[in-house]
């Protein structure tokens, strides 16, 4: 057949940049300036006071916001820092969530222990998925991860594992109370809020240091120019697979926290829509800008509510139009806008 004779020539497949990334290292590594530190401390102060002034449901929502922020942070490490795509991070989130649920409800292990286990397990799963994905670039990696995301609910429904996963029914988790006599001061919602806050701060600190380290520089070098990075002696395959693992670990821990907060896991909570949600948060917050995860998470938690109020069932369309607007008007997301504003102010 004549059509099959077509090949892509060099001209058609000229080198394309992998992702829109902010300029300069400081931008990519997050809060560096005095302004950044001031904002960070102010946010932290607000975060500590919030659960005492908000109602129970609002506290729950804020906890969920932080959970999504951690998941988005994970994807940002992969896409923003290392330049690899994933439409399938919902799968790692699911692995983390099921780890928490199975350990807590089937094995009776305390929720605190589920985090490191989920983290390590997701690192391994992510690393293993990252290995074959090494040979896939750009659009093919997006395809493989898309397939992963779509197939995830069916994996979770598998009959042989039904004994542990609860099949279609899923698993209900009992909400943990505050330990060490803190339950006199904090109710369960508030305790989970602070627990998530501390885990989130720790992970953010980890991510920031990773990006600033030698490893982080190697990851960014691979993103900006893989061939140059390789010729400089960077072992691209090891770094790319590791980036996948670390990214999956962050998202897995988020899934673990998410399961504890929502107190329920079921296969249909981890559909393609979840992966889309994490990607949306990343793009809105700003690809390659770590603090953007918080803004992205705020968007995905609160905007559906607003959209539902305007018109029921149109949240998805709202997401869609907003995404297109962001790509057109502010391709670097909220982070890019804020940086532009900060640059204007400090001039």
């Amino acid at each position, binding site marked *: *057949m*004549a*059509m*099959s*004779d*077509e*090949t*892509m*020539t*060099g*001209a*058609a*497949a000229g*080198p*394309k*940049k*992998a*992702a*829109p990334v902010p300029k300069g290292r400081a931008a990519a590594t997050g809060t560096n300036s005095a302004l950044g530190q001031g904002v960070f401390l102010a946010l932290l102060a607000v975060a500590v006071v919030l659960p005492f002034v908000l109602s129970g449901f609002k506290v729950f929502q804020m906890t969920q916001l932080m959970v999504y922020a951690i998941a988005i942070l994970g994807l940002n490490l992969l*896409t923003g820092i290392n330049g690899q*795509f994933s*439409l399938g991070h919902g799968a790692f989130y699911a692995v983390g969530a099921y780890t928490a649920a199975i350990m807590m409800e089937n094995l009776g292990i305390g929720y605190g222990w589920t985090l490191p286990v989920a983290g390590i397990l997701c690192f391994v799963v992510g690393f293993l998925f990252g290995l*074959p994905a090494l*040979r*896939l670039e*750009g*659009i*093919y990696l*997006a*395809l*493989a991860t*898309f*397939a*992963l995301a*779509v*197939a995830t609910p*069916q994996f979770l429904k*598998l*009959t*042989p594992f039904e004994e542990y996963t609860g099949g279609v029914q899923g698993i209900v988790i009992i909400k943990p109370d505050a330990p060490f006599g803190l339950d006199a001061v904090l109710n369960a919602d508030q305790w989970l809020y602070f627990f998530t806050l501390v885990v989130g701060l720790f992970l953010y600190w980890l991510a920031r240091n990773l990006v600033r380290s030698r490893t982080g520089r190697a990851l960014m070098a691979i993103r900006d120019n893989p*061939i140059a990075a390789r010729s400089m002696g960077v072992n691209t395959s090891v770094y790319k697979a590791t980036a996948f693992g670390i990214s999956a670990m962050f998202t897995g821990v988020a899934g673990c926290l998410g399961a504890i907060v929502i107190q329920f896991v079921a296969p249909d909570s981890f559909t393609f829509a979840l992966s*889309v949600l994490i*990607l949306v948060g990343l*793009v809105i917050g700003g*690809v390659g800008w770590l603090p953007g995860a918080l803004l992205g998470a705020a968007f995905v938690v609160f905007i559906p509510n607003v959209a539902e109020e305007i*018109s*029921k*069932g149109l*949240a*998805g*369309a709202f*997401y*869609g*139009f907003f*995404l*297109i607007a*962001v*790509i*057109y008007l502010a*391709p670097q997301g909220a982070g890019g806008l804020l940086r532009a504003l900060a640059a204007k102010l400090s001039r």
Partner: protein
Amino acid sequence: MELFLQQIVAGVATGAIYACVALAVVMIYQAIHHLNFAQGEMAMFSTYIAWQMLQWGLPYWLVFPLVIAISFVGGFAIERIVFKPIENAPVLSHIVIFIALFAIFNSFAGFIWDFTIKSVPSPFGEGPLWAGAMIGKHQAGMIGVTLVVLALLWGFFTFTRVGLAMRAAAVNPESARLVGIRVSMMTALGWGMASAIGAVAGMLIAPVVFLEPNMMLSILLYGFAGAVLGGLTSPLGAVIGGFIVGVVENLAGTYIPVIGGELKLPIALFLIVAVLLVKPAGLLGRRVVQRV
């Protein structure tokens, strides 16, 4: 043996749908070297339009070409309005826009026609093709339509000037532009055709799986698997790949006990990853060589 043959026939019939979707995927890939993740949702939306027209009482064989035409214009318009301005944007921007379109179509379909399952009549009628036949009328119809679409495409690309121009624009945009081909118009045309083929696939599958906003997600995944298996640069390969995926899916579902009816989507995942690792160009595709 009877069961085996039956499963193969059933596989070929479902494979026809995957082949159609794979064809649409390949059309877009030819035009812009991207995979359209919103392809399935666009097809779903076209199918809803068809359902609505049928509800209004229009005859099926009037609705069929009408919806194809509407989808063609729709796909063409999407390229002009949404993708033209970001032609040279990075890959991530394109993927994000595909996801955005996915969300928009899915959400609007649910909003306009709600989420209840609707049944769409088959134009080929119910029951087996002939008494005692293994293959149903609708299944035979699906296979027939897919082959007709493939033949039309082949004719279009081989014998018409526009088809030749589209091939030129896909193979070498620079040179094509120099000989006076409007390359960006060819891209839009590719989008329109992909959208039209998707509409055909949607209308054919709807009588089998019932119409609801999420019906195309898994079918799109199989379509991708078929396209990758056959080779993203080859329409014939995509059709062959689609048929193979359909047969493999059915046989694995029948003969591998763990898989049963429930592990069918992971098969698509394994197929995609395996093909991309072992033979990234697919069965009939050409290897993409990138000049550095």
